[in-house]
């Protein structure tokens, strides 16, 4: 039997009271915000409880909220999209992490697919997944500086002698109407 987000919330609430810090049920994709310390227990429960049976973690994303106007709201969200192949329902879970030194327990022991997704989030956001078996960068070179999908990331000037920073002068010249052509730019 398919369950909607409210029913899933009820079942988590009954098993782990107070671990859902907030919930948004009136939006396009309803989501539940889970306490960071309890995410492993809640995840295991969601996978193993026969009525819920969320056996597939089909998307794992991270979002950086810089919130310049309200710095106290600044956070990194880890967003988990879970599906149950058995009951054909799905749910979105979120975990809120502080922007400086974000740490969360790994989920690879619950859903093995989290291994690579977490490496991606570590690479591009700098989230540290505690207990991860192989936390290395996955896309970028091992010695790349910083985590590019952070909103306050700055371009390095060069990487091993290769200029990587987009030239601001170039865009200025284009804006001023100069015909700069196509091809390798200076």
């Amino acid at each position, binding site marked *: 039997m398919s369950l909607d987000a409210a029913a899933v919330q009820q079942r988590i609430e009954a098993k782990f009271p107070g671990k859902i810090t907030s919930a948004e049920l009136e*939006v*396009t*994709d309803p989501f539940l915000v889970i306490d960071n310390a309890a995410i492993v227990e809640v995840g295991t429960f969601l996978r193993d409880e026969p009525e819920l049976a969320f*056996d*597939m*973690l*089909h*998307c794992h*994303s991270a*979002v*950086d909220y810089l919130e310049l106007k309200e710095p106290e709201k600044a956070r990194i969200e880890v*967003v988990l*999209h879970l599906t149950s*192949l058995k009951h*054909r329902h799905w749910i*979105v879970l979120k975990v809120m992490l502080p922007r400086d030194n974000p740490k969360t327990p790994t989920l690879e022991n619950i*859903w*093995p*697919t989290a*291994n*690579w997704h977490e490496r*991606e989030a570590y690479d*591009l956001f700098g989230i540290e997944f505690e207990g991860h078996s192989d936390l290395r*960068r*996955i*896309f*970028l*070179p*091992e*010695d*790349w*500086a*910083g985590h*590019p*999908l952070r909103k306050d*990331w*700055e*371009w*390095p*000037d060069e*990487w*091993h002698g290769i200029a990587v920073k987009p030239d601001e002068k170039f865009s200025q010249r284009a804006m001023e109407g100069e015909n700069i052509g196509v091809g390798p730019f200076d």
Partner: protein
Amino acid sequence: MSSQTQYKDLEPDEAYAFKPEDLEPDEMILNMGPQHPSTHGVLRIELKTDGEIVKDAQPHIGYLHRNFEKHAENIDYQGVIPFTDRMDYVGSMNNSLTYAVAVEKLMEIEVNERVQSIRVITSELQRIASHLLALGTYGMDIGAFTPFLHSFREREKILDLFEWLCGARLLYNYNWIGGLSHDLPNQWTDRAKIFLDQFEPVIDELDNLLSYNKIFTKRTADVGIIPPERAVGYALTGPNLRGSGIKWDIRKEDPYCGYEKYEFDVPVGQGRYGPIGSCWDRYYVRVEEMRQSVRITRQAIEQMPAEGDVRETVPKRVKPKPGEAYGRTEAPRGELGFYVVSDGGLIPYRVKGRSPCFVAMSIFREIAKGEMIADMIAIIGSLDIVLGEIDR
């Protein structure tokens, strides 16, 4: 220069996951790729071998990394579409469709029936083209050259149809948010029907040419077995999941573009040669899917309304209200999804692409252990990966 922008110099052997000092006697580290014809792109696989047996395998990806997600945070919503085309560059129609579906979900746009039908036709033809490429190159990886020529001859006809449709053969920019870039040309559907009539017998021909060949079945039937529970745990989707015997298709489970109107079956791996979930099963699911795609395309052409403006619901300015949506479709390689977050501005706050190939590659280490070196080629080909989508 701030401390964040400094890189540290690495020792050359830090690029290796396996260290020479940890090896047992008789073991050896072998690099496959990044420039290797059967890795289907720039993929490096580090193998720890004992003679012919692979003890461990570690894929290294990222050689094609362009950080599509960072680009998407710097251009407007419609401008992201050409970037999505370049993710899975042999299944572009499905990529832009998925992104359009995700943003339409965020903006609560309902496209009209003509747009839906055209989207179904193009994405099913794209699925056939993509599967033809997958099967042809798979045969070639294993050592059968002829099926490759047959399948590329047919794929070319689909690319010609697409070229007539939108001027491009691989990267179309055809599906827009809220509609399509332009309507079908005159008599395009007639030509598509002629193609389908001519193509349907060719599937049987291809099937007879390769599928039951003794060398082919020996090379694929007992290799790279993915048990169903591991396939689900690793969140495999598409033919890779269905090859393990699990009936799961987004077109049936979470219909988009009116797929609920069409009659089609979801083929799954039967274990006709060797155990369920072998390379052969994954290969054969793709053959069967081409038959189903022909069926769907026929119905979609039949039921397509003659009238309708394909740009009726294309917004003048794409400016969704703050919020987020996850849109997903069944791409040729599995569930493709885009998680789009809007802050109410003209450019997306965050676009995450959920790539089926990235997920398929993550199971590689587990299924490669204990196989032979030559079987690595068979396993990679059967997972049908495209590096443009893995690395994004």
